């Protein structure tokens, strides 16, 4: 019997391909070149590759968004799907890679770490995130998850001379592998309950049968637990503070932005689109996760004295807010979650960028004390951090406010009033610890600190990425609010 190979539409996986091939080229270049090139060469290469992937994703976006739903389709034996949703995440991820690469440039030089390998791992990790967002099969989602995570485990331990970094890598690896196994078990149960791992076939099966078999409910639970680890939702958040604190700070920013976005991409696609017909079964679970994440994240962040840890807890509470959009399970909720992820990516990358600069040599000074008097020593840096923190707190005129507004209004529209009220109350608690950092920055610094032998420098790359983050945060919250929300609204999932 002749073998009929499926058609491989290369254009549909072009962003992923560019990232992987680019990573391999950097790897080859790093290995073959006799002379050690300066670190910035690799940064520029990495940015060009990510920008190339972004351009190809933009081309896909135009194709998908022009004729409504007509452009969206599945490809390569139904393994991937090209729709607004997948392209949206591709653009977001590539943007995060560019910002993180700029941030990492000076960090790698400062800590004398190997630049090529760092960029290779970051690009490969991003390709996993893209694959997760574009996947139309639970197996492809799992492979994307592994590509993303395994590269991140290594990146977490990249500053291997520092014991905390190795500890973070170990912790992340053990718990991450554990959660991947749970996710895989969920995939197996979903296969058992529906007879397929293909999301389209699962959706078709579920539309035909209204029964809620225990195996199917088990699949929901295990898939939520597995992905809950990746997005750091309470009660699966235990690893987050330690890993975020121990990892090299640019990696923390990348991890917080990309791993969370990819986790949400999978979560939204699987539950909102595929299991949408059975929403009454999984909505309570998501409700509980959202409430716990928002409350625990906000309350525990208040007692932190380390800024990196505080930002880790704040990212946990952000995960809770994004879950509100999923809980609503409406088109508006989906758009709210996507808009929140867009705003969050810039806020979190910018914040960790500042932490990178303030931590200085050895990535050591991350305590709240290091920020004392920053307003006098580096007024510009303090101002940028203030804007980013206010955005995270959800102050008007920033993207963070609109993000919270959209998800909460989606919850109100879906009649989840309790959830909306809890979210608003928690935002008030959260405002406290963001404001505390701002107060500390503008308080008079100690004399010993101001006469520091190791002043805070702002290298060009890091400065550029901070500028982009803060400008994006402000204009998405003001001038470009409409177009940005339209962008998120058009990132719809192809209904199979």
């Amino acid at each position, binding site marked *: 019997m002749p073998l009929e190979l499926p058609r491989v539409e290369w254009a549909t996986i072009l962003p992923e391909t560019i990232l992987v091939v680019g990573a391999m080229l950097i790897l080859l270049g790093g290995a073959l070149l006799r002379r050690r090139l300066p670190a910035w060469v690799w940064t520029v290469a990495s940015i060009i590759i990510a920008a190339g992937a972004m351009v190809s994703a933009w081309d896909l976006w135009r194709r998908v968004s022009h004729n409504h739903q007509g452009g969206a389709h599945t490809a*390569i034996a139904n393994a991937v799907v090209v729709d607004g949703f997948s392209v949206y995440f591709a653009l977001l991820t590539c943007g995060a890679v560019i910002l993180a690469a700029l941030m990492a440039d000076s960090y790698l030089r400062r800590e004398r770490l190997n630049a090529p390998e760092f960029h290779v791992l970051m690009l490969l990790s991003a390709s996993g995130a893209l694959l997760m967002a574009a996947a139309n099969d639970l*197996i492809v989602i799992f492979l994307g998850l592994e590509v993303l995570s395994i590269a991140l485990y*290594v990146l977490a*331990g990249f500053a291997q001379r520092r*014991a905390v970094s190795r500890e973070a890598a170990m912790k992340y690896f053990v718990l991450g592998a554990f959660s991947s196994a749970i996710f895989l078990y969920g995939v197996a149960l979903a296969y058992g309950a529906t007879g397929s791992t293909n999301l389209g076939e699962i959706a078709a099966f579920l539309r035909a049968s209204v029964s809620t078999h225990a195996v199917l409910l088990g699949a929901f639970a295990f898939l939520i637990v597995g992905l809950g680890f990746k997005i750091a939702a309470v009660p699966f958040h235990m690893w987050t503070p330690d890993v975020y604190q121990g990892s090299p700070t640019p990696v923390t920013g990348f991890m917080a932005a990309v791993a969370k976005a990819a986790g949400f991409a999978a979560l939204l696609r699987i539950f909102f689109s595929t299991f949408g017909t059975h929403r009454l079964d999984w909505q309570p679970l998501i409700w509980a996760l959202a409430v716990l994440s928002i409350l625990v994240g906000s309350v525990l962040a208040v007692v932190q004295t380390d800024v990196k840890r505080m930002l880790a807890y704040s990212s946990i509470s952000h995960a809770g807010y994004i879950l509100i959009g999923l809980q609503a399970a409406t088109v508006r909720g989906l758009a709210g979650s996507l808009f929140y992820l867009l705003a969050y990516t810039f806020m979190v990358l910018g914040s960790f960028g500042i932490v990178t600069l303030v931590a200085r040599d050895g990535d050591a000074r991350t305590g709240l004390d290091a920020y004392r008097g920053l307003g006098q020593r580096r007024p510009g840096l303090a101002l940028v951090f203030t804007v980013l923190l206010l955005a995270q707190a959800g102050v008007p005129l920033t993207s963070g406010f609109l993000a919270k507004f959209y998800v909460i209004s989606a919850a109100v529209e879906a009649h989840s009033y309790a959830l909306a009220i809890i979210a608003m109350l928690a935002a008030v608690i959260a405002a406290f610890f963001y404001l505390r950092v701002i107060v500390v920055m503008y308080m008079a610094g100690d004399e010993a600190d101001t006469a520091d032998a190791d002043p805070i420098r702002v290298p060009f790359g890091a400065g550029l990425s901070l500028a982009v983050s803060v400008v994006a945060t402000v204009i998405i919250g003001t001038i470009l609010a409409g177009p940005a929300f339209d962008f998120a609204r058009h990132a719809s999932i192809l209904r199979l």
Partner: protein
Amino acid sequence: MDWAVFVVAGIATLVGALGVVTCRNPVHSALMLVMTLFGIAVLFVEQDAHFLAAVQVIVYAGAVVVLFLFVIMLLGVETNEDLHKDPLRGQRPAAIALGLLMLLEVLLLVRSNWVTGAPSTAGAARSADQTNVEVLSRSLFTRYLLPFEATSVLLLIAVVGAVVLARRPTRAELADINEDDPDLVTAE
């Protein structure tokens, strides 16, 4: 015929498995493991799972056990370790109880007609005109083409990651490390 092959392979598997846990010399244990894995491979062949049998021999008997032997021979084994004391209390009784439970479950599942060695009728290991290997390769190169290729990225990351994490710092880098800082640890 089926029955004879099954009994021989089964005995080899069981003897090997017992040997793994009873041999005093770890190298002998590893070699006993090879016997077990070969026995299982024969059982796979008997069930028409030819691909699985080949993988069993190549990956497990070939690569994994060789890796075990490498580790044993290169690193050596602590000979003065007391094997009669459990690292975790109550480990042995718990293991025996769980093992018996598993055995009971298997017996329950197969009910009465076991030890026949006849090929299984459940599952689609083979169809009328296609062998097991053919069915498997068909799905790998059609339906699962992209996942199959994506695993290669996974392997690439594993290689890069292993190199990054295992690389020793150069002398210049070692000189950078500040001895006074307790946070910094030198690689040996």
